[in-house]
């Protein structure tokens, strides 16, 4: 049996164990804000390089850069696993949380020297959180402790199909089409003693919509690669799912959100025989939702910058073990707080990681760890986090 079928079986087996892309919990307290926290579907290599997933050298299977898949000799698949742990301080209240998910599963299938097709699944928005408040009310002549609760469980993910075309040997273009999927359940109500969850009210929404993307990759020399990508989300629709189990209450209304234009770019240069440096950045036009989300504090355009380096000088048993470091910073799109005076949070993180070539080069696994903080107005919100990422690319080189 060749290496490819074996790996396919393993990948299918591992992925079959878990609800892919689904968060078991939230990865940040900021998931309570706006449309939630955006989850970047990047692999552990990009994570270790500060999140730089655009413009890396050579052919790659990349969510953000479909064009990078031109030049793959054989089909391949990459999947990533991510574990987040955070600690938030808001209004003097400390909250811990953690999440595990597969944010990325993407396959690439070269159909000719110039054309490669891609298909996969990537996380998009995390909307899992709960807010509680305890109070005491007088009922039947007695004080009764009640708990008010608002919770949200679910999120949005994207199914993608893409095509990459090599215009020239050093220039390629990519186009992609995304289908938004997912659902979220909202619960708002009051728990009385003895009640495990509020008897009312639940509302479920299914997400749908189509998004579009385009990218390019240009290598003016063997030591330099430039790439950029743009995506336009189109309209994300949230449709009410009728609830026939609970009390008859208003089911809520359908919602639609015009998702923003998102731009990313990156440059990677080889600065030594075994050393590569990458820098990049991104911009997301979330301010288009500012009016719609005004009651939640509104939204702003967000930006990010990243830099990283990879050194392939370490050889273990004739295998290169690339070592990576990176850092990133940026602003986040949704306010922490419902008023227009509340702060938008900023995110800063540094990361490191390593890779390992397996099965005679048929597979590559990467590990990354990231440590950072998200800070709004320091008096009202701060959050520290660490993240572990693991990814495997099977063939596709």
């Amino acid at each position, binding site marked *: 049996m060749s290496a490819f079928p074996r790996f396919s079986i393993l990948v299918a087996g591992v992925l079959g164990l878990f609800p892919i892309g689904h968060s078991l919990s939230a990865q940040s307290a900021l998931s309570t804000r706006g449309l939630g926290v955006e989850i970047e579907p990047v692999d552990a290599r990009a994570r270790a390089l500060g999140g730089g997933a655009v413009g890396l050298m050579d052919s790659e299977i990349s969510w953000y850069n479909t064009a990078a898949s031109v030049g793959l000799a054989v089909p391949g698949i990459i999947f990533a696993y991510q574990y987040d742990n955070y600690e938030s301080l808001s209004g003097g209240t400390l909250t811990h949380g953690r999440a595990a998910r597969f944010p990325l599963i993407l396959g690439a299938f070269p159909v000719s020297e110039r054309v490669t097709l891609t298909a996969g699944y990537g996380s998009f928005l995390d909307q899992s*959180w*709960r807010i*509680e408040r305890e109070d005491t009310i007088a009922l039947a002549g007695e004080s009764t402790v009640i708990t008010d609760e*608002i919770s949200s469980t679910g999120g949005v993910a994207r199914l993608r199909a893409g095509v990459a075309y090599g215009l020239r040997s050093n220039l390629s273009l990519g186009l992609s089409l995304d289908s938004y999927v997912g659902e979220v359940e*909202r619960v708002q109500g*009051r728990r009385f003693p003895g009640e495990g969850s509020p*008897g*009312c*009210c639940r509302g479920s929404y299914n997400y749908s919509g189509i998004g579009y993307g385009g990218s390019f990759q240009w290598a003016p020399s063997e030591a330099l690669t430039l790439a950029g990508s743009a995506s336009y989300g189109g309209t994300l629709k949230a449709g009410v799912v009728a609830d026939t189990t609970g009390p008859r209450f208003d089911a*809520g209304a359908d919602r639609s959100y015009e998702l923003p234009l998102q731009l990313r770019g990156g440059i990677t240069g080889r600065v030594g025989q075994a050393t590569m440096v990458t820098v990049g950045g991104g911009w997301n036009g979330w301010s288009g939702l500012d009016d719609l989300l005004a009651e939640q504090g509104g939204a702003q355009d967000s930006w990010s910058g990243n830099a990283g380096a990879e050194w392939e000088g370490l050889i273990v048993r004739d295998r290169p073990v690339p070592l990576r470091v990176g850092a990133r910073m940026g602003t986040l799109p949704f306010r922490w707080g419902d008023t227009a005076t509340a702060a938008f949070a900023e995110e800063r993180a540094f990361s490191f990681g390593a890779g390992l070539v397996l099965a005679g080069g048929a597979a590559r696994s990467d590990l990354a760890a990231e440590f950072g903080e998200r800070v709004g107005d320091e008096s009202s919100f701060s959050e520290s986090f660490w993240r572990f990422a693991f990814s495997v690319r099977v063939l596709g080189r």
Partner: protein
Amino acid sequence: MRRKLRITALFMVGGGLAIAPGCADRLPTFTDPEGFPENLIPTSIEYVLEAEDFLRSAAVYELPTNKDDFPGLVVANDFDGVLNAHVVADLGTFPDTIVYDNAVDSTFSYTSGLVSATIPDTLNVSSPQLSFYLWELVESFEADSVTWERRIDRPGNPVNWTQPGGTRGTLIGVARWDRTTANAVGDSLFWTVPALVMERLANDQAAGLLVTLEGDNERADISRLALQASIRPTARQDTTVTRPIASGEQTFIYTPEAPRPADVLRVGGLRSDRSVLRINLPTVLPGCAPQLTCPTVHPTQVSINRIDLELETVPVTGGYRPLTPGLIAMRQVLQPELGSKAPLGFYINTPLNGTGLPNVASFPNYFEDQFTAGAADRVSLVISGAAAAAYAAEETELAIALLVEPEASRFDVAWFSQRPKLRIIYTLPQTPELP
């Protein structure tokens, strides 16, 4: 092979990491009170209906049970100034012979006896210290028909006691019980029976035994009596052997009978009093807090948190008030129009559907001090589960039986006013919306 092992190990590590946080899966929960949107705080309403607004009928039924179905024996003396009860016991058949050293001995003699009983764990006693008197019973009785006044009470052939409550002979002994005695013996009552009395009992010269309480205002439940005889074999005058005496007829006699006031709901007692309430669940509820004006809503349009019947306790007379907390079994009544013959259905369940709690029967409890003279208290019977089920089935009538199980398992009774209240606590719904 090594390569395959490494790859497999890699995936196993990855899978394990993926599973790890899932083991403690819980939504991140923010508890900052300032972070809860003010406009999303739910409104809960307490709505109380008076009896005339929901009660269709209230009836009390009795079962053909009596003191023979009661698992213990009752002793009382002037309890609540009214109730008296004595235990009368015929201690069965004494042996004509014993076998000792493989020899049949028909001329043995009794050296003494030991009568024992226990205070059951229910501790149905009126006082933490009690003295139980054991008397020789002079006149025989018929256990099936004996009453306080009559030792035989057959139709056409009644025979009165010479002394109502059982004609007493000599006092055999006094057993003192102290609730604070914290050991197994502390729950036991022992009376030593002299040889002379044992001989009389064995020779049918004594009719049996009688247990009384002599202190004022005392009442207690005790177990059946047991007698152990100490016997001296004819051949070995220096030896004593013990033999249990086969238990005979035992019962208790009391006066007066439990009152049957017509204007109260009764639960428990030797007649297994059962109260049946037929209620109409409301079809409209206020749609806002009482001080506001708004349209009414149907109960299925709100989140019902609790529905309970609130019963006002009534002091129990005749010495039949409870001495310990009790549980009321609530069961749905099927075909309530059949009255006393209506079959009982499922137990009323407390939890509402979807609460995540086990769907267990609800046994509301009451306390002994709620039925004393001058006490006016309330007992809440939570019927949320049954009411929710009725609403879900688009029914509004509910018939509920209040009883004590097993039947006749309590001597005392619980009384409640025939004008219960229906209390509904509900929360107005909200619409969970996305931003």
